């Protein structure tokens, strides 16, 4: 399968610190991939390089075979690369409906219209309402985003990213900080994403990782330690070494993950 997102020898230095070290990575269309690694492994830096928030020191990023290394974030987004953020990045003064209407309008090239009011395009509005319905946000679609409970905001963070029907979606810790009672809802939403959308999940929570991912990349000190299927990763001695002493060790003993560490 052709890679929809690819990097070649990607490097990022911050002063003397190497945050991303020679990462070569390929994501096939429709992938369910997880990016894991201990704190400070460079996961978020890598995601920022992919999405265009940061420019690499050297190396190349390809989106659908096109070199997008020098493209700004908004151009990559228009080309089908969407992401969520570890810390919610929402429009606090908007309603969820306005948020999604804007995202869809932008994706369809309608966001430069300037004479008719927002909401007059019936196609955009009904697509937005449908999406909010699917993500269980329909009942709060007219509320102020800033006043929504955190779990709902987290769902909206996903909704805004998938509104453009991207080819690639980077999910940066989608369930981070969500109370236990609302986690399942987020996991269900992630599980229900369209199969043709390639997903990259950046996650600390091994339970979530092993439920979701068909393949994994383990980052350590900015570089790729190992790549493989969940079973291979769990049984890899180097991965065990890295995670020993980490709080997340217990996650590795998930029964359906096929291996035990403890």
């Amino acid at each position, binding site marked *: 399968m052709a890679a929809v997102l690819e990097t070649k020898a990607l490097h990022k230095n911050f002063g003397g610190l190497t945050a991303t070290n020679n990462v070569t990575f390929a994501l096939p269309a429709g992938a369910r991939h997880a990016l894991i690694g201990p704190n400070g492994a460079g996961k978020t830096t890598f995601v920022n390089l992919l999405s265009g928030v940061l420019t690499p020191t050297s190396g190349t990023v390809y989106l659908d075979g096109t070199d997008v290394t020098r493209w700004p974030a908004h151009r990559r987004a228009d080309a089908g690369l969407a992401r969520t953020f570890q810390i919610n990045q929402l429009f606090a003064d908007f309603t969820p409906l306005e948020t999604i209407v804007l995202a869809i*309008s932008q994706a369809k090239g309608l966001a430069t219209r*300037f004479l008719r*009011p*927002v909401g007059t395009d*019936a196609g955009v509005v009904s697509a937005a309402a449908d999406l909010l319905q699917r993500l269980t946000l329909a009942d709060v679609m007219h509320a102020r985003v800033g006043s929504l409970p955190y779990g709902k905001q987290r769902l909206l963070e996903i909704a805004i*990213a998938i509104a*453009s029907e991207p080819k690639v979606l980077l999910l940066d810790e989608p369930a981070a900080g969500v109370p236990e009672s609302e986690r399942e809802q987020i996991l269900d939403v992630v599980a229900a994403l369209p199969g043709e959308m390639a997903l990259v999940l950046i996650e600390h929570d091994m339970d979530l990782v092993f439920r979701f991912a068909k393949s994994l990349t383990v980052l350590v000190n900015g570089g790729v330690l190992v790549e493989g299927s969940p079973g291979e990763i769990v049984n890899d001695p180097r991965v065990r070494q890295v995670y020993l002493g980490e709080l997340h060790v217990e996650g590795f003993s998930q029964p359906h993950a096929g291996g035990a560490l403890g």
Partner: protein
Amino acid sequence: MTSLAAGARVATADPGAHLVAKARWRWPEFLLWLFAIALIWLAPSRYLLFNEIAILALLALSIDLVLGFSGIVTLGQGAFYGLGAYTAGLMAKHGIGTFPWSDPLLGLLGAGLVAGFVGFLSSFLVLRGSDLTRLMVTLGVALIVQELGNKLDWITGGADGLQGVMPAPLLGLFDFDIFGRTAYLYSLSVLFVLFLLARALVNSPSGLSLRAIKGNVIRARAIGIPVERRLVVIYTIGAAYAGIAGALLAQTTQFVSLDVLSFEKSADALLIVVFGGVGTLYGALVGSIAFKAMYDVLASATPEYWSFWLGLALVLLVLFARGGIIGLLTALRDRLDRARSARA
């Protein structure tokens, strides 16, 4: 805004209608414009004051577009105001041809184009950096333009001001009379048309994307909004609006003084937007009325303490009513709405 319960009912039925309803005209809006028109008959002796208010409101409106809806802090809107004033002033003074080419409306167009062009060029300076950087850059540009106005006295008249500005009759029909009747009607009409455009813009998808940039630039970029391009466009529009306001001033007062380029002008206009309510459009209008009315009353009663009262009002407003006058009125209306629905 409707009450929450009513909103929810509309919501499930037709979310689009709920969005469009936000752009619908409300009765206080009609009231304000009808009042502005009624003033023609109510207070014929104060046309000149009303004219000043209308012009100030247009300048404030230009700041609200840039600051209130797009989040660009500016202390330099006076530069565009002044450029517009000098452009229209020079066009009227030296005259270009005869009617229809000498019409004041073409002066407005010329002023809008010149100010818009300079706004476009300087917009690239305000794209980067924090609020403080933008404040300093816009102020710096304004200072440069002001000093140019002073030094190029063979064009601008320098400190003596631009004399002999004689605009042709409006549409070849209406002379600018000494009472300011034509002036007020003219400025009010221009303000109204540009206000309608601004109102349509902020309620449109374009306006939504500008508010998105103001609200969260990281997310705006992540959904594909070309942030820089949008900011260039709105800053240019804002500059053109300010330029047209300056042109109105030059044509209706038939004089341009260096004061139009002064820091005080930019600062006053910014103050007016804050007074009235940032990001509301009507804040610019109501703020101008309040500012001028306050000035009219207080400065004639105790001219030496004008700054004192202005300062006091500013401190009180920022401490107790962050949303300005419009914010206060909205809060009041919401409270009444809630009281009414509680009784029902």
